[in-house]
């Protein structure tokens, strides 16, 4: 860009160079390599347990407990066969997907609408309402599980999808409300007012303007509440017996009276992790914040 001659520095021991000093580039790439190195170490540290679980899922009972650990072995599908044939893992997987999928959707829909109202409208005592919603989350689950069990029996909801969907929706709601409220607040009011003036109803403003701007928040929230519900064990084990049994209950059953069946535990762990990994990868591109960044400035 600059074609002007640079003022030559005639300080002793310093050459007036047209290009950056020698070695600058090399130092820079060294720095980049160091960063990559550290990232690699961190990845190995965090991913090794997962890797070990995946490997163990395909080991025979002898190989799993072998010491020193065997790295080369003959892979087997026995663990999965047993999970599916005698432990009902497939139907549990289906139950989990239905229950958690539906409750995540419901929590997201109701939670986002509540968050929008709490952030945008003048509601009397809305801070109190927001705190009350949060309190649902603060209640230790063990406190409510017995009453819920009794209620479920009374209304014939025991061992059905509906009781778990209700509980998981309720668990996810406070989180959605509190996270999404912040995202709504971050949207400049003038954007929504412009849409109102341009001919939108409030609901159109929400769906056409605000929701697209909240996508990063929605993506993050979906992953988190899905994971909470997906891993939930206490309610799942207390409120179901067989028909609506979910995967965490099956996973717990791999702890046998004679000890933990590591091969089975690894296999069910692998099975359980797949939907979460898939969801996180799908949501990943929205997780990059900053869609609303730089709206006002300029």
């Amino acid at each position, binding site marked *: 860009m600059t074609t002007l001659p640079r003022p030559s520095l005639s300080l002793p021991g310093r050459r007036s160079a047209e290009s950056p000093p020698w070695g600058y580039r090399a130092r820079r790439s060294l720095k980049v390599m160091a960063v990559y190195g550290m990232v690699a170490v961190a990845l190995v540290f965090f991913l090794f347990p997962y890797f070990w679980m995946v490997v163990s899922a395909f080991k025979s009972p002898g190989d799993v407990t072998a010491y020193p650990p065997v790295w080369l072995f003959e892979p087997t599908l026995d663990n999965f066969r047993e999970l599916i044939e005698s432990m009902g893992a497939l139907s549990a997987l289906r139950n989990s997907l239905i229950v958690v999928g539906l409750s995540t959707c419901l929590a997201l829909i109701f939670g986002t609408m509540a968050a929008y109202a709490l952030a945008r409208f003048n509601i009397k005592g809305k801070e109190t309402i927001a705190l009350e919603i949060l309190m649902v989350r603060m209640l230790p689950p063990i406190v409510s599980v017995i009453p819920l069990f009794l209620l479920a029996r009374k209304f014939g909801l025991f061992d059905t999808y509906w009781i778990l969907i209700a509980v998981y929706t309720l668990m996810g709601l406070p989180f959605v409300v509190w996270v999404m409220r912040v995202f709504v607040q971050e949207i*400049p009011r*003038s*954007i929504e*007012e*412009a*849409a*109102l*003036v*341009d*001919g*939108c*109803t409030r609901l*159109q403003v929400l769906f056409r*303007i605000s929701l*697209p*701007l909240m996508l990063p928040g929605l993506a993050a929230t979906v992953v988190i509440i899905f994971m909470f519900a997906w891993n939930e064990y206490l309610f799942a084990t207390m409120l179901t017996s067989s028909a609506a049994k979910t995967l965490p209950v099956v996973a717990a059953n791999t702890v046998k009276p004679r000890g933990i069946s590591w091969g089975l535990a690894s296999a069910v762990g692998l099975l359980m992790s797949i939907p979460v990994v898939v969801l996180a990868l799908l949501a990943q591109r929205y997780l990059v914040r900053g*869609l*609303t*960044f*730089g*709206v*006002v400035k*300029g």
Partner: protein
Amino acid sequence: MGVRIEGLWKLFGGHTAVRDVSVEIEDGEFFVLLGPSGCGKTTTLRMIAGLENLSAGRVFFDDEDVTFFEPRRRDIAMVFQDYGLYPHLSVVDNIMFPLKVAGVPKDERRRRAGEVAERLEISSLLKRKPPQISGGEKQRVALARALVRNPKVFLMDEPLSNLDAKLRVSMRTEIKRLVSDAGITTIYVTHDQIEAMALATRIAVMNQGEMVQVGNPLEIYDRPATRFVASFIGSPPMNMFDGRLNSAEELEVVPRFLGEAVSRARVRQFYEQAPSIGGVVVGVRPEHLRLGASVGASNAVVELVEPLGQSTNVYLRADATPFVAVTNRTTLQVGDRVDVQVDESNIHVMDKETGRNFAVSPDDGLGA
């Protein structure tokens, strides 16, 4: 379309933001609400837009009462201070958005957006998104989005205040051209008196929630109804001095040449309007002071000279009181003695308590 507001009030908790504002804006008028920040001008505009609920009062578009209409039913277009562009939509989608909501067919939408973009010289930006364009370009896109629908009323809330000084002046001219071409009634909010003077067919000056004076720019400049209007409009601002109407025929003020410039008849006229009032404020605009060559006992000394090119600000002191005069180019030097002259018609005498300007009859411009 004409806009009429009647007895508009807005209370925020215990604070009165807008107090009994009424005005009638004619079809095709460029009407500017002018005032310092917090004077209620933006709130007034937002109530006309329907974005703010009224505490009391009525809003009419022509003869239709739109007081309780939602914004979308008022057929208005608004330009916001921070532009209010939709960041997730491209520039062309932003411009087409009002048409899309209104259900205009796609081809028609594209054609009209293209036309407006052409007129505002933003055709090259259509595919980009708002975060990728500059402030001036955002401003143009916001204007295009407002123009594309041919609204009945244009509302603009300090649309130029986020631009740098140079761009602000060029956009100002452009807005005036675009709006007068379209012939659409426009209500424009600003705190910048020069912007107001340059754009308006009529200005309403607001202060502390009240509409203090309504009139065309020169009316407001020449015949400010109150001390507030007199001091708010004009740059450098009007010189103000404390004075007294101490008998029926004498205006006592420092510097003395001002009092001497007012005839006895005129003093009596002021006095009759408010016989009980002793304290007044005497005002004179800097450009109404004529600096003449020193003749004998000159009445002022030059303290500072600011040559601005097209005019010169001369800071003077007379009878130990400082004031400023604006002249053409001058050879005056600091320390020179000059003779200051002023016509009595250019001297404003205002009530110190209420701020009312006695030189302007009370009905002037108010409640137009």
